[in-house]
């Protein structure tokens, strides 16, 4: 019979989970890392990571994911591909239910399920996903060669990806609801200097319309004035929502946004359960934070296991 109980289960293989996996494997802990898709998490959606220390020339999200995976596997990381659909954290032995009907249990759990792009939630958005509405500039940018695309958002992701899209698109229009960008200064400078990027300030998108694909965005500015913008595609980059559908949010005391609060050692309100990376309730969501929290969480798990025995 296959092994079903582990001292430590790590859920999710983004930068937090892969770092946790690296630390757990290197410490020779009895561990299992569970991922439902591919190792890397959201960095797979990022074209370029310019601020991860140790890579002075920057690195693509794809390559960093690969390197983190190879690094963790060097220490005999134990990992599987599976989809956890629910869990019971009310007993000292934590139980995870998998999509295929089987279950796994553990003494300590590190939740690294991450986050996914937040949709606008406007008419037309859902029906044009894959037909002009995108949440991943790295994936879909090449389909817009010599076309006009819009980017919605004003944070780091929106501004960085607007610059990236100019490699393909003839024109990129960044639509932001405020009159200034929230993105870090170096990204702003790059965007303002790029002749292919123009800006529509103080405006929100209220509707996506088209026939076979996206053709037009309906805009509303802060003064109440409506207008339309002809585009071939729109990239929605307005922040993230937590991947928490498998988590018992009440006993983990999730915040109003559905993220999981922890102490400085990444311990949640449930003894033996840690949370690391973008799923944590926090202000800053960077790759480096996620990796650091993954390491912290394994040390917290080790500490918990020591006291248990």
């Amino acid at each position, binding site marked *: 019979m296959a092994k079903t109980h582990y001292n430590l289960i790590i859920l999710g293989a983004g930068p937090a989970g892969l770092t946790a996996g690296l630390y757990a494997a290197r410490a020779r802990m009895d561990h299992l890392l569970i991922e*439902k898709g591919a190792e890397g998490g959201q960095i797979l959606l990022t074209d370029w990571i310019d601020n991860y220390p140790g890579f002075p020339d920057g690195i693509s999200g794809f390559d960093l994911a690969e390197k983190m995976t190879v690094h963790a596997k060097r220490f005999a990381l134990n990992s599987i591909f599976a989809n956890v659909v629910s869990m019971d954290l009310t007993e000292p032995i934590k139980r995870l239910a998998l999509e295929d009907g089987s279950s796994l249990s553990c003494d300590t759990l590190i939740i690294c399920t991450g986050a996914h792009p937040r949709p606008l939630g406007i008419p037309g958005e859902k029906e044009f996903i894959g037909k002009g509405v995108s949440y991943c500039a*790295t994936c879909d940018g090449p389909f817009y060669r010599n076309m006009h695309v819009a980017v919605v958002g004003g944070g780091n992701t929106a501004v960085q990806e607007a610059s990236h899209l100019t490699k393909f698109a003839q024109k990129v229009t960044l639509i932001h609801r405020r009159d200034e960008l929230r993105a870090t200064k170096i990204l702003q400078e790059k965007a303002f200097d790029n002749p292919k990027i123009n800006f529509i300030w103080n405006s929100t998108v209220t509707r996506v319309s088209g026939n076979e694909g996206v053709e037009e965005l309906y805009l509303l500015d802060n003064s109440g004035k409506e207008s339309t913008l002809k585009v071939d595609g729109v990239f929605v980059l307005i922040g993230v929502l937590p991947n928490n559908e498998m988590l018992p949010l009440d006993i983990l005391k999730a915040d109003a946004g559905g993220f999981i609060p922890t102490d400085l050692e990444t311990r949640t309100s449930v003894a033996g359960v840690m949370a690391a990376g973008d799923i944590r309730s926090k202000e800053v969501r960077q790759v480096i934070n996620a990796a650091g929290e993954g390491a912290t969480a394994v040390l917290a798990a080790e500490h918990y296991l020591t006291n248990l025995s």
Partner: protein
Amino acid sequence: MASDKVKDVSDADFLSVTGSDTPCLVDFWAPWCGPCKAIGPVVEALAEEYEGKVAIVKMNVDDNPETPGKFGIRAIPTLILFKSGEKVDQVTGAVGKAQLIELIEKAL
């Protein structure tokens, strides 16, 4: 990104593969696409589970510009289900296994 378990189709043999009596699911992907990689293991598992009932194949959109253009693909991964050469339905993005099964079952 699916592995060798999922056969490659090209612009050249696309019509013959999707036009057969066996329903066919085509995974449009590219090597530079993270979510395509993410959906890979799921597509692979389904290829095994539906062996003999549904042909599950992949098309690299970098190498085959014609077919993705014909189907108006502007995002990947996009998976399109065909029955006797006709498009039944499609999904886009790194969706879960349950959603892909729901799609595949539409042709059975």
